[in-house]
């Protein structure tokens, strides 16, 4: 994973700065005081469950949602300025391409909408097709592409104007693992070229692989921000997690787990321990209380654990 460049930044050089962003829809506060900064060549993950406020934040940055308060600047310019708009690329969650146009025609169309023309447009289209590995399918209708290819075209259309800041809103939704890997490679290549990326997802694995820093967002608020290691360390220090499955009545198991400081997650008992010796004590206690052990494992906490630890809920709830 590439690390963020350690160069001094000012508001004019900072690709993206969000300060105290608030957006309400009626009584619902979708974004509640979000503040973030993204540096060049950095991929910042916005990790949170559905409805956490990730997409609203992205749409506010790209000008599709008008914030109630707060500010958003792109290289020091207001997000709704022409300068900011030229620097911003957006890959929406939806497959926002023209199904009856070919891949190339789609890229030409979106390039033209961004003011590209002539040689510059042709070069950009060629670059995007190569980046998305769609050169061989450039003449195919977008509507006829496979799901993974459509996603890649959707991403290519979002960076056709070669933006320095790219906002990706769950770009791998509905994509098979093989295509997902290809998309990861595209994003890594983009990041390595110095592009600042904001990447929203509710897949912990994606955030762990792609993101230099992760902002965990829930109910419109950033509840934790840092690198993967920082988040895990802040939440769990050196502790590990024991996952155990027992046979028997669920209510009895749940009561026992609770009395021993653990919690039930999908019929699995989860305990956080400081030292591995505590495992033996737990299992002895279970046996003494008549619980039949089916399976036990030890794992290092991950972002999923952090989210659960912070919110009491799972990411995909």
């Amino acid at each position, binding site marked *: 994973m590439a690390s963020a460049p350690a160069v001094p930044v000012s508001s004019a050089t900072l690709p993206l700065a969000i300060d105290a962003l608030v957006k309400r829809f009626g009584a619902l506060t979708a974004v509640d005081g979000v503040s973030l900064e993204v540096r060049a060549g950095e991929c910042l993950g916005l990790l949170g469950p559905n409805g956490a406020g990730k997409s609203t934040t992205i749409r506010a940055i790209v000008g599709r949602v*008008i914030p109630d308060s707060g500010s958003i600047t792109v290289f020091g310019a207001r997000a709704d300025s022409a300068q900011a708009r030229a620097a911003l690329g957006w890959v929406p969650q939806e497959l926002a391409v023209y199904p009856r146009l070919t891949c190339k025609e789609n890229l030409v169309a979106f390039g033209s909408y961004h003011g590209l023309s002539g040689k510059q447009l042709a070069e950009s289209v060629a670059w995007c097709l190569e980046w998305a590995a769609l050169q061989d399918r450039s003449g195919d209708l977008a509507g006829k592409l496979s799901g993974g290819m459509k996603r890649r075209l959707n991403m290519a259309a979002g960076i056709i104007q070669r933006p320095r800041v790219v906002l990706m809103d769950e770009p791998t939704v509905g994509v098979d693992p093989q295509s997902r890997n290809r998309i990861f490679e595209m994003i890594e290549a983009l990041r390595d070229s110095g592009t600042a990326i904001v990447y929203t997802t509710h897949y912990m694995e994606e955030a762990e692989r792609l993101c230099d820093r992760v902002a965990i967002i829930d109910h419109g608020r950033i509840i934790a921000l840092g690198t993967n290691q920082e988040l895990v360390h802040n939440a769990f220090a050196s502790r590990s997690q024991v996952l155990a499955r027992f046979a028997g009545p669920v209510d009895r198991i749940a009561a026992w787990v609770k009395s021993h400081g653990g919690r039930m997650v999908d019929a699995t008992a989860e305990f956080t321990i400081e030292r591995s010796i505590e495992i033996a004590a737990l299992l002895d206690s279970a046996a003494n209380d008549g619980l039949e052990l089916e399976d036990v494992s030890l794992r290092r906490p991950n972002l999923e654990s952090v989210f659960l630890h912070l919110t009491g809920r799972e990411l995909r709830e």
Partner: protein
Amino acid sequence: MILPIIRTAIVSLRRDRAALALSFILPISFFSIFAAIFGGQRDATPKIHVILVDEDQSTASQQLVHALQRESSLVIMTRPTSKDKTATPDYTAATAEDSVKAGDAPVALIVPKGFGQNPISFGPAQTGSGIQLLNDSSDIIAPQMVIGLLQKAAMTSMPVAMAEQGMKYTDRYIGGLTPEQRKTMESNLDTLRELQKNGGLDTTASSGNSSGGIISVHERAVVGENKKNPMVSFYAAAIGVMFLLFTASGSAGVLLDEADSGTLDRVLSSHITMTTLLAGKLTYNTLLAFTQLTVMFLWAWAVFHVDLFSHIPGFIVMGLSTAVAVAAFGMLLASMCHTRAQLGAVSTLLILIMSSVGGSMFPRYLMPEGMQKAGLFTINAWAIDGFTKVFWRDLPITALWPQVSVLLATGIVLFLIARRIARRWEFA
């Protein structure tokens, strides 16, 4: 098992407003429109406007004019209507013909000098003193109605003239029935019989002269007399406009697809503003509609011999004006609707009603007067009127200004409303 299926279908239909509208409102609307047109509502029967020129000013001609003015189904115009209420000179034969050509009235009657000396003509049509009927041949009903009412008026308004004429005939052909007179009568009857046998006696109602009545009428079409296929240009415009409206609303519906797929959001996040986007779509839909009309009229030219190429300037002006109006209409519908299904139902409902009231399905002159006026609220009526001026009346482009003004103004206003409503897509 059947009951749950029926219940599910009923619940689905009840919640699908578009399907409900198509199922119930559209048929009722259509029924009402057709019932109003053809249902024989006496008060609403269309009155025929007739220009009348009395060149004779004799007692007989004046009696005839007064009788015609009393006819409730005719509107007799002896002078042009003035918008500023000032007095205008009476029609002359020449201005009456011009007015029929301009479409002010479908029929003009000219009572010539000398009519009063010999108003009644039993038997074959007379020449010289017969009444001239000038008509616009696009309206095939009005002249027949007027001829019939003219004969009725003559029968009721000129008993003296009829008696005098009867006496003349009796005196001329019968006399006192002396053997000599009888011989003369027989001889004349033989001549008449011989004429009938040889076809020299016209006993059929010809299109040129109406000899079936007691007044001789010389009928002459002053509009469309040289047209090869009189009604085709009307239907090319009438049907064309109706389908243009369908195409325009369908094409504008792409906006809903784009909003649904997120493409609209993506486009609006680029340098394209909503105004630019809508203006681009309006231009495209206008060109699409104009191309459709062009193809339609080319087909009419190739297959039905509509004289397209000698009316190119008028066709372009009317075609583009119509295209702008229908394109803006489609954009307004698309901006108002939230789904494709809703758009489909609303557009079908509105376009079919507009087309029936506006004259795309049958000529407006067949409709009651109130409905003819209601038709003026439709794009169809103005477009058809304009194309009729171009292809039927051979009027110059300058005569199209009312239709062009209304269509362009409609286009601009509908587009501005669509732009206002489209704000819902701009920001959240």
